[in-house]
């Protein structure tokens, strides 16, 4: 049996922040009426998050078995271990059987990167037109934005660590961008 491989093959770089490939990540796109009971229970099935704990606009919340991120008024992104994507999806489909919704595996369409270190905010702020100051951006917030010339979604897992998701085909570009922005001599000192 062949093993799946991530686009960046676990590449890493140390500079103003540590930039690295997070490896394969299970991701499921869920489109539906996010307030519908069946959709909520599908999210619960995937993440362990009960209805009230599920994310509102611009939020990402982690549950026992996975995370849920709000993507748009009718779209959520669910994160789970890569190897469990199939079973999670099956559990969700069961809940969604009677409503109009779309749940689909997008794990292989994306790449996930981590940017970690005290200057991580600055590295990201060189590439994304977002207010990434500590007053405005904290763990729990997710934003879909632009990273230089490509679309990206980003959030923080702790005060000094970002996760970035972008399309698989531009994985090299995304990694090289972050590497450039994290050049050790290019500190800004703004945050």
């Amino acid at each position, binding site marked *: *049996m*062949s*093993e*799946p*491989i*991530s*686009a960046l093959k676990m590449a890493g770089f140390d500079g103003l922040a540590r930039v690295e490939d997070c490896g*394969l990540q299970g991701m499921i*796109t869920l*489109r*539906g009426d996010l307030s519908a009971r069946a959709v909520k229970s599908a999210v619960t099935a995937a993440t362990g998050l009960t209805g009230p704990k599920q994310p509102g606009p611009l939020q990402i919340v982690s549950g026992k078995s996975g995370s849920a991120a709000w993507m748009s008024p*009718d779209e959520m992104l669910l994160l789970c271990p890569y190897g469990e994507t199939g079973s999670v999806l099956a559990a969700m489909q069961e809940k969604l059987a009677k409503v*109009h*919704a*779309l749940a*689909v*595996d*997008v*794990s*292989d*369409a*994306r790449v996930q990167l981590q940017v970690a270190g005290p200057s991580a905010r*600055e590295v990201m*702020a*060189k*590439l*994304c*037109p*977002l*207010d*990434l*100051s500590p*007053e*405005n951006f904290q763990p729990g917030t997710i934003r879909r934005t632009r990273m*230089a*010339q*490509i679309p990206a979604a980003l959030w923080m897992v702790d005060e000094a660590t970002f996760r970035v998701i972008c*399309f*698989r*085909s*531009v*994985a*090299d*570009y995304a990694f*090289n*961008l972050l590497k*450039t*922005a994290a*050049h050790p*001599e*290019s*500190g*800004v000192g*703004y945050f």
Partner: protein
Amino acid sequence: MSTRIASHGRLIDRNTTVSFTFNGKSFIGHAGDTLASALMANDQMMIGRSFKYHRPRGLVASGAEEPNALVGLGTGSRFEPNQRATTTELFDGLSARSQNHWPSLEHDIGAINSLFARFLPAGFYYKTFMYPRSFWKSVYEPFIRQSAGLGQVPTERDADTYEHFYAFTDVLVIGGGVAGLQAALTAGRAGAKVLLMEQSAHWGGRAPVDGGTIDGAPVEEFVEQAVSELEAMPNVTLRNRCMGAGIYDHGYALGYERLTDHGPAQPGPRHRLWRIRAKQIVTATGAIERPLAFAGNDVPGVMLASAMRDYVVNYGVTPGQRVIVATNNDDAYRTAITLHEAGVQVLRILDARNSGGGPLMSVARELGIRIDCGRAIGKVKGGKRVTGVSVCAQEGQGGALEDVACDAVAMSGGWSPVVHLWSHCGGKLTWDDAHAMFRPDPQRPPTGADGLGYVTAAGAANGALALDAVLEDATVAASAAARAAGFKSKSVAPPQGAASPEAPLEPVWLMPRQAETPLRMKSWLDYQNDVKVSDVQLAAREGYESVEHTKRYTTLGMATDQGKLSNINGLATLADALQAEIPQVGTTTFRPPYTPISMGAIAGEARGEVFQPIRKTPMHDWHEAHGAEWEPVGHWRRPYAYRRPGESTHDAVMREVKNTREAVGMLDASTLGKILVKGPDAGRFLDMMYTNMMSTLKPGKCRYGLMCSENGFLIDDGVVARIDDDTWLCHTTTGGADRIHAHMEEWLQTEWWDWQVYTANLTEQYAQIAVVGPMARTVLETLGGMDLSKESLGFMEWRDGALGGIPVRVYRISFSGELSYEIAVPASLGQALWDKIADVGAAYRIMPYGTECLHILRAEKGFIMIGDETDGTVIPQDLGLHWAISKKKEDFLGKRAQERSHMTDPDRWKLVGLETTDGSTLPDGAYAVAEGVNPNGQRNVQGRVTSTYHSPTLGRGIAMGLVLHGPDRMGELLEFPGTDGKTYTAKITDPVFYDKDGEKQNV
């Protein structure tokens, strides 16, 4: 001569010497010098030649407004033209070259233009190069191009790096003089997040040079305290060497930070472009002194009075030993006093005002300086250097009262607030008659999304020139800005500034007032573009009334300094010539950037490997390692062909086609768009999207479909697979994936928002591998895991399963006419499956093939390609695709448009095959000519080539084209003149050249 003096020099470190070169000659300066001050210290007053007349030019100013002292800075990969010597900080090893002269700065052939100056007035080019018309292309344009342009273009790739930074703040303060510092303190104390930017390396602006006290102490003490208090505030960020370059809509502003220009050996990015979103912006950008327009005001040694003061106080250099000061205001007396204190002989102060000035005049007089009121400079003498002036009466025509020998002239025509940033996004100006200046009109600021102003001018930039007024104004401005950003500032009395009171100035736009023509022809307004008083007056005489038109006709203010010194003098001259009031003539438009910013800063990180995102399939590296020649398709790179050692690209393509037709080939088809469409209304939706019927497709089956825009034109095609009752997977062209997904979402979100349909773009979820050719089934069966027999997986069917242990979805579809399978696999397993197929296929002569082979295979079968056979003006009916257009459906996108008379016109060009009579290959895009010529005298045409290839299968050229009445003219010959001079003759045929009955794919 200009020289370093023993006193003054607050910004330089006399203990540290710095060596640099100018035009190859070595000089010594001090740490803290600018290139300008160091050149002046070395008696290098002449720094360049003017653009049009090649006149010798020296330093006029001391800052960003400098029009003359532009140099080529650095060498090789760090060379940059048009750098202002006044804002270039000196560093060890700096190398500068003067510009716009040949063969040398001292001896310049182009200076001959100066002798013909009277024949080169405003509009000279427009008037001269009109006739004869034929001369434009061969004579005039080459000549003008030769002499156009200032500075040289770098020839090497830039060695430096650049970056952007996105910053968000409550209050952005632009300018770090006393006004900016006070504004930042006020807003910072109110609790607002503040970003304070200063373009130079020093805080405090020019107040420390101008003197006075703040709260009883020297200005420098206030500056020091303010900076340290601001540095201690966690909510305040200070950036020097960072210019506010532009203000744009809704609080967007650009900051241009020069990180290593003052020490290029330092690591890290050279420039950083700050892309700022501010709730409120305070522009504390100061004011710029105006030159006086008198004859010879451009001779090296004639300088702004304030600049001369700057050079003495800041750098301890003086431009001359015997100086004459000409002024219409009190401020220039400060220069006279400073020079006197520095041991420079001030021969005269020529005060154009009959009544002279206020207390500063008394101070000067007490120092023993001679002051002549009502006097003016009639003419400056000297070529490469001031040698003297003729003094005349300001009210006269220039008749000399006396000649005075001197080596420098300080001039002051009053001050103009720097209103550029205020004006960039629509802030309006008001004319302040008392100070003869335009200043921001607080009633008409640039407005944001809420309709309220978001820019406030502060201090001298707001017309508050006196020190006490500056501090008061900055406090009020910053309080208002902080309040507008949501912060209440405690009302604290501003620090008390104290400086000598000044008598009112008297506007002087020409010196002397009645100057005769020869003098006006030597009175410069715009130094950089060589525009004189006489040019503007000529423009007015020739009927130019609008200041914007006059600007373009005379080129006044159009140089790289954007008229910082010339603007107000120029429009006052125009107003005078038109006998209009200055505010009625108005100003030209101020546009960002304030001073030119580097191209590198604009590009930011986007160079080299991150110049542009390159989209790569999961098998990209394999292709690269196997000789792929790349073809860009959108942002994707697809292999065009895989060249083997010793092969030409053409050979490789021919080999790939033959091998695929005879044995088996494999193609990376991962880039094809894959859009999942699901929901109870998905069938109905796809029936609208495609011209043919998709709702009737059975699960497990595939159908080829066409998509049109609402105007009827063909925009995309591809195979649609029905996955289950309410799910379809739509394949799009490579370039169409994002566009078609957006097209679907647009219709769903704006028109059919009540239909129950969701879409998801799964293009990158799957790698897709096409296995094509007579041995395709054998290869896959050898790999094992699925029954792919004709009975079990028929043509245009799909199945899920596993091949070689890898989960796959196999589509039996063909874009080549061969037995063909397209295998979708999760992208992370794409390379693994590719390797297995290549391994197993080796025994059956499998070879990878590229896009050119794909094109030939499809063209041999007469399959159309979006972008070749279509160009946005072609409808499916033109391409003989009637079979794919449903007659049963009530509606689909494009249906109504295709019924319009022009679309049903029988004269529309239609798709046919084209076969050259001699087997050669038709040139791509060639036109078939018809009899006669059109009204433009061009040959009539009756068709064009849309795709053309050499077919190795058939051993001759094949082509498709759109031809007038083509399908009714089978067998007719057409003539296609090529750009190579040959004319190609081709026969009209059916577009299907190979295996018309489809026997090869139905096995």
